[in-house]
Structure formats: structure tokens, C-alpha cells
């Protein structure tokens, strides 16, 4: 695998409506985050946000309404490579959709190249300059 490239297995939400990846937050909480290029920012459900906050894995961001999770890693990728630091919103709508979190455009824009390889069901992310 080229330097600066992440290869992450993709899982499907049982609804058949979304795909996503499992992410570890602070090496203490693992959750499924939907890949959502239609969302400008990444988000967490209220229940997960509350759980992370109680464990000091989610801190308030200087920007109102945003929060900073502890370091993210790709849970099902070999070596659990780190993922970009994100500021996330808390989105009550996610509870109704049975989604714990979503990765929005703020996540994807941190990479130079984003490839969803369907035949292998994996996401390939290449950092700029790699």
C-alpha cells in the first residue's frame, strides 16, 4: 500500500440505505459511522455523545455547537491507522435513523483522493502529497 494511503473495510447499515466504517474513539469506544457526502460536517447521535462525554472522550470545541472527539482510528483496518481529527455536531435525527455517527464532507476533504472500491468493499483514502 502506498505511503499515506488508508484502506478501510466498508460495512453496510442493515437498512440498506447507507454504508460506513467502524471507528474507534480514544481506543475506548467503537461505533459505526455512516459515510455521508451529503452532510457538510460529521456528527454523533446524542446517546453516543453523552457516553463519550461521560468518559472524557468528547470535549467542547471553541466553535459553538461543535465538539472534539478523542483521536479517531480505523477500527477494522490493519494496524488501526489514525483518522483525521474532526469537530462534530450532535444530531438528534441520527437516533431515529439508528445511526451512532456519520462522517461528512469535513472528513473527506482531509484527503486528496477518496475511492470506494466496490469489488473489495473497501474505502481507499489517500492523503495529499502521498
Amino acid at each position, binding site marked *: 500500500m502506498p505511503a499515506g494511503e488508508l484502506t478501510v473495510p466498508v460495512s453496510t447499515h442493515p437498512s440498506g440505505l447507507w454504508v460506513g466504517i467502524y471507528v474507534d474513539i480514544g481506543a475506548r469506544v467503537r461505533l*459505526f459511522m455512516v459515510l455521508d457526502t451529503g452532510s*457538510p460536517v460529521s456528527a454523533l447521535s446524542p446517546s453516543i455523545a453523552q457516553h463519550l462525554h461521560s468518559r472524557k472522550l468528547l470535549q467542547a470545541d471553541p466553535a459553538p455547537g461543535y465538539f472534539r472527539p478523542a483521536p479517531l482510528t480505523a477500527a477494522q483496518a490493519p494496524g488501526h491507522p489514525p483518522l483525521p481529527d474532526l469537530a462534530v455536531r450532535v444530531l438528534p435525527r441520527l437516533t431515529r435513523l439508528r445511526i451512532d455517527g456519520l462522517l461528512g464532507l469535513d472528513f473527506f476533504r482531509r484527503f486528496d483522493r477518496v475511492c470506494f472500491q466496490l469489488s473489495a468493499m473497501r474505502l481507499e483514502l489517500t492523503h495529499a502529497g502521498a
Partner: protein
Amino acid sequence: MSKAHQSARKRTGALLEHPAGQTAPNAVAPETIDSPETPQPTLMTLDEAAAAYEGEWALMRVIGEDEATGEAYGEILLHHPSRGAIDKAARRAVKRDPGVHLAFILGGTQRRTLEEFNALLDKGARGPYVNARW
């Protein structure tokens, strides 16, 4: 399944919590339990748990990783249709061990083959429209 995974399944751990009248799909048979007071935990990988508990949420205490595949495995602390019940179980788990590594799993959220993926997307596309807008 690797030897590491097989040996992991033989480990003992904390008590399981299951909804009344339910047992885990691959729970250890009663006759193999060492003592009536020390039930064996259900150990499985994340994908196995996701497949086993479709329609429910599951809370896993991540214990380790399979040396061969790198896939995480752990003990299912609770599987339940109610997310609120899972959140309560998570709080209890953290109270017992503040450093516990927990995985929140929505049953059915798992890695699939391309054929399975396409079939699931077709099913989702034929279903009712879901308003997921901001």
C-alpha cells in the same frame, strides 16, 4: 478461525446480560460450564455479533484481536432491541471498569460481499423513502 480466536472463545469472563427469555446464539452449553456460579461469556467477533443480532443493538466488551485476521473479538454484554437498554448497560460497564473498550453494534451492520451489498441496497431502494436531511 485462527487458534488465537478459538482459544479466546474458551476464556471466561463477566456475567452476560440478555433480555428475559433469550440466550446468545452461540452461548456455551450448560454442561460445559465449570460452575453454576460462573457462566461462560459469549465471545465473538464484531461481524459475528452484527450478523447474530440483526434487529437488535449489541454491546461488546472488546477483549482482543485475532492474531491472524486482526479482527476484534469480545464479550457480548447485552443484546437488546432498545438502544436505551444498551446505553444503561454501557454505563454499568464503565462503572465497573472505567477503561473498558466498548463496541456499540447495530445488528446487521457488518461487512458483506458485493452480491450481498447490492441485494441490500436494492432492498433499501425499494423501501419507504427515508428523510435523512439535516
